[in-house]
């Protein structure tokens, strides 16, 4: 029998094509007769569009058409939807402001889509776009989150630019707790706005087939079925049967490529309008302007403790930026993916959260790696360190005193979620061991002897992954169920297709899912072919985000494979001339125990397709589909520790050590999971010390609009990462897996800011803690110390 593959660091199946230049990304696909779209974007943050003069552009060489929002509206194409209804504190739904592919009336951010030119070549389209004359009437832009509610109204539907004012928890209850607290720690903090920036910019290619009256859309999408659904039901009215969405190789997503965007919607419309395939590939400037951004919260957090440091209550007041329009899931991120995580790893009995979501004249904001959960973990782990400092308690000890302990599971938090399993002390112990926490004072002293400030910071995080149990999220306002589908299709000669509704864009699904199926069927992994990303091939599925692909998609694959094995059981019993009950199955073989009679699953598959001598009444074929709806979220958790050294003279920071200990439940491919950690850490560290989307607060111009201005993490910004695991298997899915995609990005910002604060001996420093900010903080802290002395 072959070796089991699950649990092994198998090298990836997808590497060969990607390493030899044979990957097929959207921009690599060429269609005969294709034309090129170029979008005319608003140079103003907030302006009425009075007129658009197209004549000169239309007369320009190679131009096939120039269109505006009014042209698309004449075809009755609707608004791009926001699929998650958040009910505010007064019982009213959020303000569902319209979001058209090309804005017909008003530009609402710099980069907003005002017109489109289609031409034979990209250069011609771009040249012609210069000739379009647009008469704008400028309006005062609303940029600053703190004052957005008193700014000029951006949408008719939303007075005070308020999307919703939402509350979780009881005000009276939290007030009572705070009234009897021994100590209250409080902090104002900013969760900085980020540009997700996968290396592949978004792209779309749309083609209309008049013979079939059908459309094909190639898109850089993380979830082609959802895109088809939205385009069909809400936007275009094209039936799903006439709309095929294909996501081929996609060059990273991180949440930003979940959504239905104006550009692909416009290309779809154009493909019929101009009667030619229409291509658009964003350049990086367009990515910065018009990709959905992430985070962007301003928060006041307060933690009430008793005299022993036991948490009594947590109070959180957040203003969350929605940007100029509602991206598809924007409303859910600062509510159900944020406030529901505010218990963290701790037994905080009372939690109250107030969230005001506001519109501003900036790019839409939606989920980005972690989505809500990093914002929650950041404020929890920061306020604990502040409380520890103020009360003179060791921050590790303070965490331990309040941890939910293994005996407490399943644990009902005060904020909806029920954690199934975990062991937070175990992860923390391992992380402390790996970084040699006991040796820190000596290392600090050594740094000091060289004039450097050394600091150490811990963050214990939890996240809700395996998105998501449909009934639960339905109660929270989700407009879709977040189950997943899988189809396992045996071929006559014993190879198998696995079709999944998830989509891989770097996560190695072809390998991980292959390992699972190869083990279950006892066939080589080379005989398992994963099919994903094509709505015409794969059963309806919900895509990839929220660390759901393995926990939900992988579980669906297990269920479909089990159905295959169960049906094969009947065929095998017939072939072995035994009663079904007497036949056993193990890894590719059906056998009758106590005899030497056995038959291979692959031979059973052949029999299923040549059903001559075959069980009476049984359908031919070996091809099964399963839909898996998780019973609960999964709850990965862990402890990360950062150790830093700061040069107070220059403010430069060196990350000298990093330990990440995570509990992802069962791990299928440790190599791939470790890669996910590394990538998440890089993004989280990027948020903590480098990255920041900045708009000019007066004009709304994007100041961080290129890789020259937006500090993307580079290779020499990082140390080597030390990764460790603890394991409490998820209790409610067949794989015991919890999901690993987002953890690194959730744990790292608080760990790093805790370390920097620790080094400087200060309460807080806002992200990104750039050398300039650190230098200023070091000087201020130094001056304060000098005064004391």
């Amino acid at each position, binding site marked *: 029998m072959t070796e089991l593959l699950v649990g092994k660091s198998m*090298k*990836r199946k*997808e*590497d*060969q094509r*990607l*390493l*030899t*230049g*044979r*990957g*097929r*990304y959207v*921009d*690599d696909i*060429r269609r005969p007769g294709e034309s090129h779209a170029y979008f005319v974007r608003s140079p103003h943050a907030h302006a009425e569009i009075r007129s658009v003069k197209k004549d000169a552009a239309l007369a320009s060489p190679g131009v096939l058409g120039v269109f505006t929002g009014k042209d698309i509206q004449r075809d009755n194409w609707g608004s791009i939807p926001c699929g998650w209804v958040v009910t505010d504190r007064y019982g009213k739904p959020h303000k569902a402001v319209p979001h058209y592919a090309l804005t017909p009336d008003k530009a609402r951010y710099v980069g907003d889509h005002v017109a489109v030119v289609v031409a034979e070549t990209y*250069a011609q389209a771009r040249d012609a776009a210069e000739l379009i004359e647009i008469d704008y009437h400028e309006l005062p832009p609303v940029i600053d989150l703190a004052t957005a509610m008193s700014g000029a109204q951006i949408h008719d539907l939303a007075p005070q630019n308020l999307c919703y004012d939402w509350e979780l928890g009881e005000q009276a209850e939290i007030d009572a707790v705070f009234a009897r607290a021994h100590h209250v720690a409080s902090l104002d903090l900013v969760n900085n706005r980020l540009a997700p*920036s*996968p*290396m*592949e*910019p978004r792209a779309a290619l749309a083609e209309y087939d008049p013979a079939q009256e059908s459309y094909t859309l190639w898109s850089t999408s993380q979830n082609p079925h959802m895109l088809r659904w939205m385009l069909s039901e809400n936007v275009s009215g094209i039936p799903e049967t006439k709309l095929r969405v294909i996501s081929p*190789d*996609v*060059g*990273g997503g*991180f949440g930003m490529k979940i959504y239905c965007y104006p550009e692909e919607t416009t290309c779809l419309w154009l493909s019929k309008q101009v009667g030619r395939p229409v291509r658009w*590939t964003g*350049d*990086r*400037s367009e990515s910065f302007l018009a990709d959905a951004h992430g985070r962007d919260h301003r928060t006041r957090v307060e933690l009430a403790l008793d005299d022993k440091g036991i948490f009594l209550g947590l109070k959180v007041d957040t203003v969350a930026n929605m940007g100029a329009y509602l991206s598809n899931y924007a409303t859910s991120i600062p509510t159900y993916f944020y406030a529901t995580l505010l218990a963290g790893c701790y037994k905080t009995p009372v939690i109250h959260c107030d969230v005001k979501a506001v519109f501003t004249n900036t790019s839409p904001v939606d989920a980005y790696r972690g989505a809500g959960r990093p914002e929650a973990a950041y404020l929890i782990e920061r306020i604990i360190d502040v409380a520890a400092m103020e009360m003179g308690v060791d921050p590790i000890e303070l965490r331990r005193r309040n941890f939910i302990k293994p005996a407490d599971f399943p644990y009902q938090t005060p904020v909806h979620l029920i954690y199934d399993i975990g062991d937070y002390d175990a992860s923390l112990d391992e992380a402390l061991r790996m970084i040699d926490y006991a040796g820190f004072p000596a290392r600090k002293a050594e740094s000091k002897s060289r004039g450097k400030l050394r600091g150490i910071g811990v963050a214990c995080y939890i996240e809700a992954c395996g998105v998501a149990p449909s009934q639960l999220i339905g109660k929270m306002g989700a407009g879709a169920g977040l189950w997943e589908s899988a189809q396992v299709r045996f071929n006559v000669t014993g190879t198998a297709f696995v079709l999944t509704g998830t989509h891989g*864009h*770097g*996560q*190695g699904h072809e390998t991980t899912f292959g390992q699972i199926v190869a083990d279950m069927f006892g066939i080589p992994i080379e005989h398992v072919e994963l099919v994903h990303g094509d709505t015409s091939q794969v059963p309806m599925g919900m895509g990839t985000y929220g660390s759901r692909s393995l926990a939900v998609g992988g579980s669906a694959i297990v269920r479909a494979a089990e159905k295959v094995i169960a049906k094969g059981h009947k065929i095998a019993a017939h072939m072995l001339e035994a009663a079904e009950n007497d036949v056993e199955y193990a890894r590719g073989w059906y056998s009758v125990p106590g005899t030497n009679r056995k038959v291979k699953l692959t031979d059973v598959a052949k029999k299923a397709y040549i059903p001559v001598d075959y069980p009476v009444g049984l359908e031919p074929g070996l091809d099964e589909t399963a839909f898996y709806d998780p019973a609960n979220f999964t709850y990965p958790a862990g402890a990360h520790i950062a150790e830093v050294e700061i040069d107070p003279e220059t403010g430069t920071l060196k990350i000298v050590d990093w330990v990440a200990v995570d509990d992802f439940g069962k791990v299928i491919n440790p*190599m*791939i999971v*470790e*890669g996910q*950690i*590394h*990538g*998440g*850490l*890089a*993004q989280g560290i990027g948020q903590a010390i480098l990255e920041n989307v900045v708009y000019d607060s007066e004009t709304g111009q994007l100041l961080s609009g*290129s*890789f*020259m201005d937006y500090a*993307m*993490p*580079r*290779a*020499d910004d*990082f140390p*080597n*990462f030390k990764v460790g695991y603890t394991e409490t298997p998820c209790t409610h899915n067949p794989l015991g897996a919890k999901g690993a995609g987002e953890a*690194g990005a959730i744990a790292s910002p608080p760990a790093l800011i805790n370390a920097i604060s620790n080094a400087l001996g200060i309460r807080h420093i806002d992200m990104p803690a750039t050398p300039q900010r650190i230098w200023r903080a070091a000087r201020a802290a130094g001056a304060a110390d000098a005064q004391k002395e």
Partner: protein
Amino acid sequence: MRRITMTVNGREITCEVEERLLLVQFLRETLKLTGTHVGCDTSQCGVCVVHVDGQSIKSCSMLAVQADGRSVTTIEGLMKDGEMHPMQAAFHDQHGLQCGFCTPGMVMSAIDLLQKNPDPTEQEIREWLEGNLCRCTGYHNIVKAVRQAATAISRQGEART
């Protein structure tokens, strides 16, 4: 329009091109060599790196006409006799790629590093790769891959001498 001739992955090619055509567009659009990618418009990301006369360059910041008469190697030209280049093999072994979008540029750039410095330290690798952005891997495994390739290539060299 200008007539240019160059060797691309060992094959001589003559073409009429617009003067403003970038080398990366020439490779992708004209020659359909889509392994070389475009990730930015400010020469920052390095996903477009190819070799011109054996030196790594960002093909988004060179015009096709500037490559006239020169020899270009892209990621598609690295395999020899059906075998991956040791750098490609090392990226596979060390899980140095996830989505693969930065990978062709990373590989081409890293190969040039080893031409110039056959035994780089980790820090030297990280500094060399400053001009190559990767959003997926956190660079950790890329650095390991380059180290592996350095060892493999120096062994090959020893075996030959």
